[in-house]
């Protein structure tokens, strides 16, 4: 197996393959870094450019975008506090505070190396453990998926520092957003409030962009003229840090790195969850397992490591699922799969044995893309940093324009932009009322899947007790209850200590 991998790496290092891989990774990093441009959009945009290439060239470029995009989100997440992609949401929680505390270089390089090592761990796992992991995912029926999503949501709802009730309520509001429009089974209109375009349901992307970007930008604007002058150009912070120290920081927490990478990988293997859930679940885990959970959200390195290692390991996991089963987990992997099909590759259980050269070529591209990603971010760190020294009054309109385009380009209609605006107002209001935004986003991501899997379960067997009596499903539901109970206990303990646990901007 490892001879095949070495041959694959030797193959991919030829200029013929290295060039598309490099360009793909570069475009991925840029796309990942730009708020409002998701990996999905970037990969969709890159797809047509690969049509003229040979299959491995094309797939190398796509793999590069995926890897680069998953890492690129950390640049804006750390430096601007806006996740460049959904998979960098949790990176903002600690990356941005750390950058604000005057250590942007440390925040970014922690993210980069965590992405790198998380990704490589994901790659080792991808190559070594494809078959057994796939077998686990296959055992998941609608009951198990339902319970898994409920578990994911309840875990993230407990992630907020302020109040468990608000966390849960925020997640539930996310679920309400997904029920508006139409039902996912028969498409019957429901709760459209008489608005025509709502009949198509509320898409996830404008909600994400709206809620996050506006909440961030408007809280910035709040503080602008009030201070007298614009609150920028404090000093030009440096990104130069001791690489050895940063890598040392990561390796001094080997268990954290392994565990969060494992979560990312597992979430990637399971279809339909995707990177946007992986980083938040990993962050939550890191916080729960930490001896200093109260430091999370203030710029602790653990938060960055957890989020970034998980989202890049997640790429490895998703690749397992599409390569072994031909089942896409989310939009990004769906496009990857489409690209494979366009290039005449029948992905599925026979793929690796019948086309080892191609399969190991993709594995190799995945590994090499991580090296390229580090190099690219290292060299583009300076221009990226300029983003933070540009006056906010100049940057804000540009970011907003990109947000509008990002929403609009989802399917080239204005109605999505209106959705964006509505959720922008809502996101800002929620932050002002002290609601955490992450559970809401997770609720929006998982809502449809929770409903459809629940209905599938009922349609397959009318016995509702199966949710509890099927071992994996029952176990996951029990774990959700434990997770909420644990969060409750933690809040209680915190309050007893008298720590004021209330913050306006814990998003």
């Amino acid at each position, binding site marked *: 197996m490892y001879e095949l991998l070495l041959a694959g790496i030797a193959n991919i290092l030829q200029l013929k393959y290295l060039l598309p891989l490099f360009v793909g990774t570069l475009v991925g990093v840029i796309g990942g870094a730009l708020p409002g441009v998701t990996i999905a959009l970037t990969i*969709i945009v890159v797809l*047509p450019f690969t*049509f003229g290439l040979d299959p491995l060239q094309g797939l190398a470029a796509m793999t590069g975008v995926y890897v680069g995009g998953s890492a690129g989100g950390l640049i804006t997440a750390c430096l601007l506090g806006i996740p460049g992609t959904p998979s960098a949401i949790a990176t903002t929680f600690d990356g941005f505070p750390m950058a604000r505390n005057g250590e942007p270089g440390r925040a970014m390089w922690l993210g980069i190396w965590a992405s790198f090592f998380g990704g490589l761990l994901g790659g080792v796992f991808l190559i070594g453990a494809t078959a057994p992991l796939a077998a686990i995912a*296959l*055992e*998941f*029926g*609608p009951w198990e998926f339902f319970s898994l999503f409920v578990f994911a949501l309840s875990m993230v709802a407990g992630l907020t520092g302020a109040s468990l009730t608000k966390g849960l309520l925020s997640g539930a509001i996310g679920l309400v957003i997904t029920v508006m429009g*139409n*039902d*996912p*089974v*028969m*498409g019957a209109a429901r709760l459209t409030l008489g608005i025509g375009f709502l*009949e*198509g*349901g509320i898409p996830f992307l404008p909600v994400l962009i709206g809620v996050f970007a506006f909440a961030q930008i408007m809280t910035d604007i709040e503080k602008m003229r009030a201070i007298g002058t614009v609150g920028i150009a404090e000093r030009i912070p440096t990104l130069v840090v001791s690489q050895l120290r940063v890598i040392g920081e990561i390796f001094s927490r080997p268990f954290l790195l392994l565990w969060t990478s494992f979560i990312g990988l597992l979430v990637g293997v399971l*279809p339909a969850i995707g990177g946007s859930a992986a980083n938040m679940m990993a962050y939550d885990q890191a916080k729960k397992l930490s001896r200093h959970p109260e430091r999370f959200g203030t710029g602790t390195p653990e938060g960055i490591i957890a989020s970034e290692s998980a989202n890049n390991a997640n790429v490895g996991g998703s690749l397992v699922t599409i390569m072994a*089963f*031909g*089942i*896409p987990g989310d*939009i990004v992997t*769906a*496009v990857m*799969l*489409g690209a494979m*099909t*366009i290039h*005449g590759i*029948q992905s*599925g*259980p*026979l*793929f690796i044995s019948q086309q080892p050269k191609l399969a190991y070529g993709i594995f190799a591209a995945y590994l090499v893309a991580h090296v390229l990603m580090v190099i690219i971010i290292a060299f583009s760190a300076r221009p990226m940093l300029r983003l933070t020294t540009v006056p906010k009054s100049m940057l804000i309109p540009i970011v907003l324009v990109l947000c509008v385009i990002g929403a609009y380009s989802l*399917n*080239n*209609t204005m109605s999505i932009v209106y959705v964006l605006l509505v959720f922008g107002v809502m996101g800002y209001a929620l932050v002002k009322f002290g609601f955490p935004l992450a559970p809401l986003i997770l609720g929006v991501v998982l809502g449809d899947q929770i409903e*459809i899997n629940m*209905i*599938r379960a009922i*349609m*397959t067997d009318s016995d509702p007790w199966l949710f509890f009596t099927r071992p994996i499903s029952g176990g996951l539901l029990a774990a959700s209850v434990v997770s909420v109970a644990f969060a409750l206990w933690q809040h209680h303990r915190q309050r007893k200590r008298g720590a004021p646990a209330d913050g306006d901007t814990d998003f």
Partner: protein
Amino acid sequence: MKRFLAAIAAAALLTSLTAFAAYPERPIKMIVPWAAGGDTDNIFRPFAPQFQKHVGQTVVIANVGGASGTKGAKEAKESPPDGYTLYSVHEYIHSTYYTGVADVNYTDFEPICLISSTPSVLTASPKTPWKDWKALLEDAKKRPGQITVGATLGSTSHFFPALVEKAAGIKFKYVSYEGLAPRMNAILGGHIDLTDSNLTQKGKVEAGQLRFIAIATEKRNAEIPNVPTLKELGVNVVYDVNRGLLAPKGTPADVLAKLESACAAAAKEPAFAEALKKQGTAARYLGRKEYSQWLKKNDDLNKTLAKDLGLLKR
């Protein structure tokens, strides 16, 4: 650099100010009402670049999935009839209308062309005990309404097994799995027993992960010579999924003519034929007029089917 950019910008403003060019003067959007990576997407993705070559403008595929494909249908219907929004369909446009899933009818659109035809294959999970149709039939008679079928409700993957049900005098239980990809996941894991699939799943059958029970064609397919046709098993069902392009009602005739000729040329491209073959699909071209007649006939047929199957809602 800045001066260079400014010069480009000025030039761009000038060119975009010039008067209307002939259609098409800007990119064309092709709505695929299902997710990327699905069957329809896999057929229209390789079609788009060929179509683009002959229509002389960029063609962008927009995947507007959801609610049995009716989300995309609604969007296509509401798009301006200027030839810049096209809509990729198959029989679901008739079946979802008559089963009451959608309000969009085929008469809301102008036909452009039909491009492909994909035969349906009745496919079983490897976790089921049935080796062939006979065993399935016996079991189904013993346990009416208990064998689960994954289907996009009201769409072709629902109609096909429903036809088999009726022809064989058995009863299935349907579970909503929209699109081929989630259906495959469920059937590989044994969470559903049966589903409608097609030749693209041949690899999984050879790996022992799926079982083809029977194909719904007149004659056996050369790609899978061991799979019997439903007809030879005494189940009189022939079913295939035909995909074509439509434009919103009211699109000008000259635009339609231009689109039709581009489609005809694109459908003949060898690269597209090659891509279709990989999809287990036959090329089937019908021009505007023939497609229009075919749609009408097919609409009646689907109405009858829906009525026969007890699914007719209007």
